[in-house]
């Protein structure tokens, strides 16, 4: 269990984290979502006692982090896989961590086996690929068999195999009853990994919802339909009160897009009126679109799209 209450962090006049309140429950993977620069890493560092909040509190299992006697036994974290001395072996890196919290040295070999690094345990960590470094970071997080786990952008830069492996790993950790908080700026990744979402933008809480609710709420569904009797179908749909417009699609075939409808409705209507259908498909708005809609005003740095002036928010961000 992680409880964050009114957490605020200001750097000069910039509010990196602004009055954030949420809690992370055990047993599920909770996604911590927000665009780059939203304050995810800063929040995680404050939970881990690395940064001091300007105001507010962050509790882990009911106490502030610095009050934990042997923190690695309670909280495991992977904030940056490159936080390893490049000339130290993977095994020695885990050994000093284990020693620092009086963990048995046998745990080092156990976690190395768990993440599949036993073969390279004696090799210098500086020579590891990003995927191997992530595994080493994960081994460090798991060293004390902690109840609470924090991961900051764990799939960044990983190949598909690595992504699937980490995703399954986090889900199995949550299934064991642990509290798992995973940050990401990729909603599509989170929709596959997490059950619950905490969405922030510019340091403020935007949403604290289940992944399913978030996707349903944020994306509008529509139906694409193709038929040789398109005009007749259009008339029927419009009469039913649906908003209909042309959608030639990528294949440039005449088709209609029916907003806010389900395939069941359109299919039944066509069948009842004897209209032949060539295609009937539901179309969900992309998750990224949904995410942009929610965080649109909260993205700190808008890219300038060719031919358009920089977004107006830019001025706000730089003011």
């Amino acid at each position: 269990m992680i409880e964050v209450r009114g957490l605020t962090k200001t750097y000069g006049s910039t509010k990196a984290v602004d009055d954030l309140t949420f809690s992370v429950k055990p047993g599920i993977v909770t996604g911590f979502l927000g665009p780059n620069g939203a304050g995810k890493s800063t929040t995680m560092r404050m939970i881990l006692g690395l940064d001091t909040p300007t105001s507010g509190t962050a509790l882990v299992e009911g106490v502030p982090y610095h009050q934990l006697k042997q923190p690695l036994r309670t909280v495991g974290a992977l904030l940056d896989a490159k936080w390893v001395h490049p000339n130290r072996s993977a095994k020695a890196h885990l050994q000093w961590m284990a020693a620092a919290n009086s963990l048995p040295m046998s745990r080092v070999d156990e976690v190395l086996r768990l993440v599949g690094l036993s073969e390279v345990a004696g090799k210098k960590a500086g020579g590891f690929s990003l995927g191997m470094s992530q595994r080493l970071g994960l081994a460090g997080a798991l060293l004390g068999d902690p109840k609470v786990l924090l991961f900051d952008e764990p799939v960044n830069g990983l190949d598909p195999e690595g992504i699937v492996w980490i995703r399954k790993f986090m889900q199995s950790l949550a299934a064991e009853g642990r509290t798992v908080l995973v940050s990401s700026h990729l909603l599509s990744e989170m929709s596959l990994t997490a059950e619950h979402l905490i969405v922030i933008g510019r340091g403020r809480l935007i949403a604290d919802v289940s992944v399913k609710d978030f996707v349903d709420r944020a994306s509008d569904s529509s139906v694409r339909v193709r038929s040789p009797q398109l005009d007749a179908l259009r008339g029927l749909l419009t009469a039913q009160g649906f908003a209909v417009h042309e959608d030639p699609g990528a294949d440039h075939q005449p088709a209609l897009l029916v907003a806010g409808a389900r395939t069941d409705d359109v299919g039944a209507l066509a069948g009842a009126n004897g209209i032949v259908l060539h295609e009937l498909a539901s179309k969900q708005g992309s998750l990224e679109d949904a995410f942009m809609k929610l965080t649109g005003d909260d993205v700190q740095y808008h890219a300038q799209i060719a031919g358009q002036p920089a977004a107006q928010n830019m001025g706000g961000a730089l003011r």
Partner: protein
Amino acid sequence: MSVLNAERIKLTSTKSPLWCSLIAVVVSVGFAAIMGVAYKSLVSSGDNSMGEFTVAYTQAGAAQFGAMLVMIMSALAVTTEYRFGVIRTTFQAIPRRTQVIGGKAALLAAIAAVLGLVIALASFFVAQATSGETLSMGSGDNARELFGIPIYYALLAVLAVGVGTLIRQSAGAISLLLLWPLVIESLATIIPKVGKYVGEFGPFNNVNYFLGNGGGFDFHWGPWGGLLYFAAFVAIVFGASLFVVNKRDA
């Protein structure tokens, strides 16, 4: 205890502390040998300008060169952690930062003291062998100048851990640690009027006075006072580093 154990594993699992120690021994003792040879040839040619052969002569390499390497090794133990982000993992494992920095300083001071004792004794005997002179270990001044080296090294380790923690950057911390005694406290002493005070109140000049290299300044206390003065300077710098590391975001 767990803090010291973790720091011990860190120090022994990379090669640079070992190399620093080895170079410190070889060059310091080598310098003692050269000092002995030079003294002998000078005396045999009838030149008496070096005066009587002293313990301070035998310890010149230890007090100058070996001391620098002890500071470099100790500063690096902190700054490389900042350089590679390891310090954050350290603070995650041990959130009470005073324990972390205190543990590092204690361990490095112990290692530096042992290293200092080895270098001091080896230099003492090697210089006697190459010079053909004999020195007594028993007299008060001789014993202080000889066994002062391990005390000096231990204090240097604490100082360097403090400066490394304050500066967090290898190049900056090492530059300051080396330039302070070499430039601020030696070059500045040649400035008229002001230089006299830099000489008398410079922490490194005071500890060198304790080690038998007074440099001709009029100190306001005895050699042991010089050591205490230096120790107070180290305590202030180290205390400041503890204060700052607890305040600062990691």
